[in-house]
């Protein structure tokens, strides 16, 4: 069974969101997703300043097994990406909710958070 922290929200495409009360959010991929993909070798991250609509493909995580698109879970502008992943893509595997974070966004429409999956709903969908 994969780890699904209770303080995060999720998208059915396996992204997680940590909402920081100041209107920004941190995004990554779930433990379930990293285990399915296997050892990461390259991560392509969105540049700060880029804007995305909810559901836009905005990053790519490439493992030995396959390349997988990461989708913007919310609408907004990227303000930071995790440059540590350039040299250490394996952080996505070893610490998907911590040091393996992908990027941070300034949200245009925080009400979109209501449409994301809570941990229980994600667990049900991911493990089915």
């Amino acid at each position, binding site marked *: 069974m994969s780890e699904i922290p209770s303080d995060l929200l999720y998208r059915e495409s396996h992204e997680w969101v940590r909402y920081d009360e100041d209107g920004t959010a941190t995004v990554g991929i779930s433990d379930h997703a990293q285990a399915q993909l*296997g050892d990461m070798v390259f991560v392509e991250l969105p540049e700060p300043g880029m804007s995305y609509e909810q559901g836009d493909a905005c990053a790519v995580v490439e493992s030995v097994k396959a*390349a997988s698109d990461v989708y913007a879970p919310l609408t907004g502008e990227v303000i930071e990406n995790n440059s540590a992943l350039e040299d250490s893509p394996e952080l996505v595997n070893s610490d998907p909710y911590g040091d393996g974070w992908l990027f941070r966004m300034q949200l245009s429409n925080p009400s979109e958070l209501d449409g994301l999956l809570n941990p229980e709903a994600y667990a049900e969908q991911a493990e089915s």
Partner: protein
Amino acid sequence: MRRTPLYDAHLAAGARMVDFVGWALPINYGSQIDEHHQVRTDAGMFDVSHMTVVDIRGPQARAFLSKLLANDVARLKSRGKALYSCMLNERGGVIDDLITYCMAEDWFRMVVNAATRDKDLAWLERQAAEFSIAVTEHHELAMIAVQGPQARGKAHALLPAAVVDELRAIKPFTAVEYGTMFIARTGYTGEDGYEIMLPGDEAQKVWNALLGEGVKPCGLGARDTLRLEAGMNLYGQDMDDDVTPLESGLAWTVAMKDERSFIGRAALERQLAEGLRSKLVGLVLEGRGVLRPHQKVLTAAGEGTTTSGSFSPTLQRAIAFARVPVGAHEKCAVDVRGKELPARIVQPPFVRNGEVCEGIL
């Protein structure tokens, strides 16, 4: 899915299991990259019990294999000597690649692929009809491959001194029998080691003993990156029924210097007379990205296709095999998800004895 005798051992070791041609096998036990490095630097072991072990017994065993195989069993002059060969159809296409061991004049053992088991056995039965031999599959045997610079030493720790002395003395591609075990100094990783065939009900005990010696379990993911670095073909990807060994980087396994008649020889001679049009080469991607099978390769001599590809943990970049026009040299580009990425054409192997080969990087 079929289970090998080591199924429970894999689960106990935390394996992520997958369906491999109908067999439940571990793809990794956590990190396939860690497992890859373990084999290159120390010792790892693979459950390869799904492979097909077939014994050829009878007075015409050698004559049968002399006709059946593209490589020449006449080279196997002493007990335990083995060779790697392709088995061809009448068009010169590869039915399978395999290792065959000469254990006695009337007993040869063949190890063929799991994916081609039914096709291979049907072909063997058909070809055996005119020879005085028996073809017997040994599905009761399990197989553990222990590979890496420390692999043989760690395996020796489990065995009595007398057989260890014998094992220390054998060259690669040689097998020794000890009790119910058949220990071959062969492998699919480019490292030294053994492939041990043994009764299925003894496999768990040997596996646990090897774990006790510090040999780490390794899965199919690492097996693929290791063999690719080592320049070893994978049947079904790098060659199949419709291509010859000459187009698959396997001309070195075809013995045609003498007049020996073998199935597919005439087709190969025709192909040589007409001139080969394609060849199998190695590719090293210049920058970031991962090469995979079935990607288009663009060369100055025309288009080709990757047949195998992955990320090489030892080189820290992507490598592949590709079938390209014979005139392709030096540089090419590979279509990776819509982008043409530059790559270099090289002669495999990429890695030997844990070191990157000259001319690869």
